[in-house]
């Protein structure tokens, strides 16, 4: 059997374990091949240009190589990697002070009191994709991350607890706020 076939047979978790022990760049290349498309597109969702998405993706993989040992198998590797990616994306967006997302979010924060409306999943799933796409570009990046983890990557509340290092009620509160905000922004788009 060829080496490539052997590599492809390894689960993500097995691969990561070997990379951590041997620091083998060929094994890491397999991780790149498995996730480059996903990570690049996730990064693209947080930035405005192809160049920025490329830089951010490169940053994710470089930091991933050095931080792989911090993956403790408490969640699926893919889930951990998506959360890791969103963290870097949020940092990237927050560094850019001139960004319109932050300006818009600051305005929204002033209306915090009005945003504690209970939003059920049915009303979330009624949203039109094109309008939701615009709304998600305008929401605070931290709230965007938690919404994408929950509703795009199907991360459970339990896994979110581990990834965000907060308790169950804090996860639910953050989700509730994020859902309220996305609905608020969605409704404000004509």
């Amino acid at each position, binding site marked *: 059997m060829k080496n490539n076939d052997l590599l492809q047979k390894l689960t993500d978790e097995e691969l990561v374990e070997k990379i951590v022990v041997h*620091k083998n*760049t060929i094994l*890491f290349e397999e991780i*790149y091949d498995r996730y480059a498309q996903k990570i*690049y597109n996730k990064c693209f969702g947080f930035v405005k240009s*192809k160049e920025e998405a490329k830089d951010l993706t*490169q940053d994710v993989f470089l930091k991933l190589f050095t931080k792989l040992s911090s993956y403790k198998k408490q969640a699926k590797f893919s889930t951990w990697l998506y959360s890791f990616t969103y963290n870097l994306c949020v940092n990237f967006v927050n560094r850019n002070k001139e960004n319109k997302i932050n300006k818009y979010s600051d305005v929204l924060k002033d209306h915090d009191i009005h945003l504690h409306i209970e939003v059920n999943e049915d009303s979330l799933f*009624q949203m039109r994709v094109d309008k*939701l796409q615009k709304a998600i570009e305008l929401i605070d990046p931290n709230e965007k991350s938690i919404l994408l983890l929950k*509703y795009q990557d199907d991360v459970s509340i339990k896994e979110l607890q581990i990834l965000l290092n907060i308790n169950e009620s804090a996860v639910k509160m953050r989700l509730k706020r994020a859902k309220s905000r996305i609905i608020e922004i969605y409704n404000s788009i004509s």
Partner: protein
Amino acid sequence: MERENPFKKIGIPNKEVPKELKEKVMSEIASLKLVTDIASLFTSNYQATMASFFKVKKKS
């Protein structure tokens, strides 16, 4: 009827990863590994060194 989750359709169609990115990433990682390998040649495991320094040998 169950509604479709619109979050799953955000960012679709997926954008293609630029071909040159892989080479760039892997070359950066190779350099990073080289630097850490070289650095490890000049550093010691301080914890182990200090532990062995203070360790009292048992009398046989």
